[in-house]
């Protein structure tokens, strides 16, 4: 049974467009704030992971590469990678790096540091990226944030592509910091006392432990 396609099933195109725009003009990196803010807004005000489930361009792009283009080995995601320790650890690490990037932006804004026209891959390797900045009429901190944010986006995309090739197409989703954070928000917002699976009453106990009863 083939499911009907919707407009949002084509959002994978956003990932290559975003990365290409940042290659030619780094200020387009600011558009990436949408990918940061939208899932948070949906989780905080809507109490759902609709962004991950439906609108995430990166997830769709990974599905396309690993699924339709068969670039994924389709091996199970390793246990350590799907453990809570790794997921929450990566969330903390990712946000530590994000705030460090904000700190550098502040230093450039205050004049304590010069603008660095580079993109830092894996938080370590500096790549020259000066062709993408033409000294536009924006404050240096605006450009610095763009370089920093693009570094973050490119690095996380690369990690996503690597785990896609090695494991399942959407293995990135397992430890995606935005996904982990929005799931945490949703857990806090989820209605209490409604945790019983609807199927239980129809077909007997499914052993989901949703009712709080331990599996025998």
């Amino acid at each position, binding site marked *: 049974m083939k499911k009907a396609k919707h407009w949002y099933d084509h959002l994978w195109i956003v990932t290559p467009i975003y990365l290409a725009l940042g290659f030619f003009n780094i200020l387009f990196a600011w558009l990436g704030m949408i990918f940061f803010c939208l899932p948070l807004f949906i989780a905080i005000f809507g109490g759902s992971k*609709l962004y991950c489930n439906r609108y995430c361009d990166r997830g769709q792009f990974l599905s396309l590469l690993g699924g339709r283009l068969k670039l994924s080995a389709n091996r199970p995601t390793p246990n350590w990678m799907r453990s809570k320790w790794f997921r929450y650890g990566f969330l903390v690490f990712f946000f530590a790096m994000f705030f460090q990037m904000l700190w550098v932006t502040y230093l450039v804004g205050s004049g304590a540091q010069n603008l660095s026209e580079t993109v830092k891959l894996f938080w370590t390797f500096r790549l020259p990226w000066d062709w993408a900045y033409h000294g536009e009429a924006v404050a240096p901190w605006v450009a610095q944030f763009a370089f920093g944010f693009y570094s973050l986006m490119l690095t996380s995309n690369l990690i996503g592509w690597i785990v896609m090739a090695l494991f399942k197409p959407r293995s990135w989703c397992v430890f995606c910091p935005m996904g982990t954070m929005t799931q945490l928000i949703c857990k806090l917002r989820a209605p209490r006392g409604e945790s019983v699976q609807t*199927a239980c009453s129809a077909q007997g106990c499914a052993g989901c432990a949703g009712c709080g009863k331990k599996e025998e």
Partner: protein
Amino acid sequence: MPSKRYARVDRDYCVACGCCVKVCPMDAIAVWHGVEARVDEARCVGCGRCAKECPAGAIELAERGIRQ
């Protein structure tokens, strides 16, 4: 007649990404309040597509009626 098997979600590992929802031919799975995927056991035919797709390895196929 219900199928012998059905999909069961391990809530400790489910990341509520919704990959399973997209591939389910029976629309038997939904993400519950962004917390975890939940299977409507009555609709599930136990085809295993969701288990194959799940990046977190949180879905397995279980025999029906074992714990009733």
